[in-house]
């Protein structure tokens, strides 16, 4: 697809087949669920039936003496451990201590010879609870009379990632707040030519990585060793360091292939519990959660956003104000950062001179919320991109033209203090408009929409790597990033092969083992191609510099006389490839050279964000007005990726993200009945299927080489999700005249909105 563009490169910017292809189609790819250790016992977890309760007493004696049971882990028997963890706020006990804060929280864990025995023993545990009043929504949770979830004040986690002070545990259920302000919104709204205002809801959603959380732990004299499905093993290592009071050199996390993450496996999940069980049992233990248990472990933050946006008489957006309440659930997890990011991402990709965003992340007695693909951005883009369409309609402008007039321009500092915009949204929007036939006539009952987003992505720039060039000319990349399916095991070797001038086939990745691979802060926020890609590029160059010096040594010449060429060096008549350089240097056909790179918040990465993740998405839907059922007929995406190291993989990220966005926009919502999760299983939680996909899908990549990653690359894989729920709401409006401001747009909601719009002869209020 990109043959023409690939002239500049030998290996990158080409859709080479996935490196993990053969392993994954043959069933040989290893996931943690597939790992067995000698002497390994199995853990099963007893969970709280109450959303908020004091644990009065617990009798585990019958379980402990049950045949085949090794031990039972309880919250009142953790002497010797520091049981609270959290990279942002240390509010999360590894197992409930004294009280439970959501229905489904682990209260005891049985370690047994096999899984069935562990399940049997769970039935034998007796727990007496004293139920406490529960709060399920941010509004009630912030009332003065609301019961407090957390009585103690917390330390900030060492790797907290957000800028504000820790709010959690200061006498209210407020977990974190964040405020963004520039210009004078009140004055701007007072002189506006048109204003739209409304309240929007983004649902509580579950990422559903098909591999549920799983970990195997062993605690011995050498320290703690874990196999885990964690996205960020180095972040988990930091939490375990505190729990066991050990240096990080004694904590090892090994992450083989991960069966999907989408943010849900970022940061620490079951690893503290599993390693505490191994510590207690003095043998290796495995905890494999079911999907139902995974749904009781992490979800995405739901958000209620009040927003207003104003234009002047020329159709320029002059002000935006929002107040957001995010439901973080029982523990902070990554929600303080989600809170900060969603505040920043309210501005959208627009250059707005007057902005005020007030954002509150609130504890409730629900499943803890944390990262979910595009976190924060999707929540507020539901509001932001809906309002762009509403405002365009108010002033009689085409919503596509209205966006073209108002989006941030390349190099524009549209968010004060942040990196100037490094994308080209007008180009992205034009591509999508063409691909979904923006100006073409529509059949009755059909509607179209176009949208865009730009989020401050790339997370924090702290990444290192080692590139080992062996004497036979093959290469090992020591990569701390995890392979979640995004394709880092393919993209990173492409970069090394390009730099070193060797064949892609001889470059291999050694992946995500904190005892072996150099530090990489995280695999999320679309950062790996940009940050680890840049590290691999720099480390490859450093290896080459070393080999040039070696060549000078073996040829007995000055370094300046050596010319570096693709795959080796020349000096006068002499031509040596890397294998010959190393073999002559070591005087044996063996040995290696190690190139290194350390990426930190400096130089190209001094200013955050690392990049703006931008995309445009467009859809066409048909709506059955009798049933309210929405069908997506067409999808177009334009991913603003700078340069696609592997175009097929980059496009795969865009359609995958758009499909997740479609799910949240049309079907997905975790629902509570009173204090209990009502649909916490895959029979009742509706996910996108084959038959939901549009028959017309057009994916394009915009490659202006404007990112700070290798060859101008930037990350992708979230932006096409972020605008999709609003795309659906806007397209349904254009098809029916009914405005729905709460996702997902289920048939019932759409049907009711159509009825209401008809009854009122126009704009509905829901």
């Amino acid at each position, binding site marked *: 697809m990109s043959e023409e563009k690939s002239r500049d490169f030998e290996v990158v910017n080409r*859709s080479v*087949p*996935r490196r*993990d*292809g*053969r*392993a*994954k*189609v*043959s*069933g*040989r*790819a*290893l*996931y943690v*669920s*597939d790992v067995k250790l000698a002497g390994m016992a199995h853990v099963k977890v007893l969970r709280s039936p109450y959303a908020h309760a004091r644990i009065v007493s617990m009798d585990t004696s019958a379980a402990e003496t049950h*045949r*085949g*049971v*090794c031990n039972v882990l309880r919250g009142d028997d953790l002497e010797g451990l520091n049981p609270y963890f959290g990279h942002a706020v240390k509010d999360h006990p590894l197992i409930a201590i004294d009280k439970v804060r959501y229905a489904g929280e682990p209260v005891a864990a049985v370690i047994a*010879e096999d899984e*069935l*025995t562990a399940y049997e023993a769970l039935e034998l545990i007796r727990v007496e609870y004293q139920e406490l009043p529960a709060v399920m929504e941010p509004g009630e949770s912030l009332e003065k009379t609301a019961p407090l979830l957390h009585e103690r004040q917390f330390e900030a986690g060492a790797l907290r990632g957000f800028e504000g002070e820790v709010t959690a545990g200061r006498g209210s259920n407020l977990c974190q707040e964040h405020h963004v302000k520039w210009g004078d919104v009140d004055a701007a709204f007072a002189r506006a030519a048109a204003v739209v205002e409304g309240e929007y809801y983004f649902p509580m959603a579950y*990422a*559903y*990585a*098909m*591999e*549920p959380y799983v970990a195997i732990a062993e605690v011995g004299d050498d320290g703690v060793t874990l196999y885990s499905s964690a996205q960020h093993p180095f972040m988990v290592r930091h939490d375990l360091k505190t729990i066991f009071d050990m240096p990080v050199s004694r904590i090892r996390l090994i992450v083989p*292939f*991960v*069966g*999907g*993450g*989408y943010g849900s496996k970022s940061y620490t999940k079951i690893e503290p519990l599993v390693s505490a069980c191994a510590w207690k049992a003095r043998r290796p233990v495995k905890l494999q959660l*079911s*999907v139902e248990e995974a749904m009781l472990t992490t979800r995405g933050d739901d958000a209620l956003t009040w927003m207003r946006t104003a234009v002047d008489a020329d159709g320029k957006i002059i002000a935006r104000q929002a107040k957001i309440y995010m439901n973080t659930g029982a523990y902070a997890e990554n929600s303080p950062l989600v809170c900060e990011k969603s505040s920043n991402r309210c501005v959208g990709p627009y250059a707005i001179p007057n902005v005020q965003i007030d954002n509150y992340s609130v504890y409730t007695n629900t499943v803890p919320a944390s990262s979910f693909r595009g976190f924060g951005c999707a929540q507020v883009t539901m509001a932001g991109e809906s309002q762009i369409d509403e405002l365009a309609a108010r002033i009689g402008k085409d919503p596509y033209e209205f966006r073209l007039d108002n989006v941030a321009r390349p190099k524009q500092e549209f968010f004060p203090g942040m990196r100037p915009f490094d994308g080209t949204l007008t180009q992205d929007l034009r591509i999508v408009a063409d691909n979904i036939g923006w100006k073409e006539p529509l059949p009755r009952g059909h509607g179209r929409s176009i949208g865009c987003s730009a989020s401050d992505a790339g997370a924090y720039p702290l990444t290192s790597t080692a590139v080992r060039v062996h004497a036979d000319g093959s290469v090992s990349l020591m990569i701390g990033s995890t392979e*979640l*399916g*995004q*394709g880092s095991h393919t993209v990173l070797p492409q970069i090394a092969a390009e730099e070193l001038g060797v064949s892609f086939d001889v470059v291999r990745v050694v992946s995500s083992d904190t005892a072996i691979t150099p530090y990489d802060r995280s695999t999320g926020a679309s950062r790996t191609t940009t940050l680890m890609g840049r590290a691999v590029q720099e480390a490859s160059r450093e290896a080459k510099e070393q080999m040039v010096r070696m060549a000078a040594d073996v040829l007995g010449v000055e370094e300046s006389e050596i010319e570096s060429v693709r795959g080796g060096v020349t000096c006068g008549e002499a031509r040596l490839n890397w294998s010959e350089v190393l073999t002559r240097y070591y005087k044996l056909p063996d040995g290696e050279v190690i190139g290194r790179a350390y990426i930190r918040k400096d130089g190209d990465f001094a200013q955050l964000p690392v990049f703006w993740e931008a995309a445009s998405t467009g859809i066409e839907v048909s709506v059955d007005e009798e049933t309210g059922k929405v069908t997506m007929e067409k999808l177009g995406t334009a991913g603003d990726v700078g340069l696609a190291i592997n175009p*097929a*993989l980059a496009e*795969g990220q865009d*359609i*995958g993200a*758009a*499909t*997740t966005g479609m799910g949240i926009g049309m079907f997905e919502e975790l629902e509570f009945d009173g204090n209990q999760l009502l649909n916490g*299983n*895959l*029979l009742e939680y509706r*996910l*996108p*299927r*084959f*038959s939901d*996909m549009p028959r017309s*899908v057009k994916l394009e990549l915009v490659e202006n080489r404007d990112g700070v990653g290798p060859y101008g690359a930037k990350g992708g894989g979230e932006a096409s999700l972020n605008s999709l729920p609003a795309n659906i709401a806007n397209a349904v409006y254009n098809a029916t005249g009914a405005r729905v401001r709460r996702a997902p747009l289920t048939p019932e909601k759409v049907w009711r909105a159509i009825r209401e719009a008809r009854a009122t002869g126009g704009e509905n209020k829901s």
Partner: protein
Amino acid sequence: MSKPSRNLVELRFELNGKDLTVECEPQQTLSEVLRNRLNLTGTKISCEVQVCGACTVLVDGLPVSSCTYLAYEAQGHSVTTIEGLEDAGRKLHPIQQCFIDEFAFQCGFCTPGMILSAKALLDDVPDPTDDEIIHHMDGNLCRCTGYVPIVKAIRKAAAVMKEARG
């Protein structure tokens, strides 16, 4: 503490073309026997309620969810798992190769089940329409790819298999 003892039954079936006898517990599912007793971990477990299709294996050529299919039900039948798809020369089955060629997976967790479901379709309907592919595959979930590349891979595999048949 000692090992729990359980009743065992003898199970005979054909697995990937070879006759096999294995002891299992009566309540064990086929996926438990495959994964835990026979160490064939290519069969993946996700929803455990017959919704996601990750655990799909073929019994006498028909797709079943091995997470809820009792191992004992396989008595005397022929079972095919993902490990049985390559030929003797380790050459991939055309469906496997087309999944690689069309980037029809990312994390790979749904892939063994997807490929086996697709095999059941193509063995029965050699030249399916897109509608037939979508209808047949609708019980297999994928969270990474947005499905479109999987439909392409199956369409391409049908063509490759047709050509091989001559």
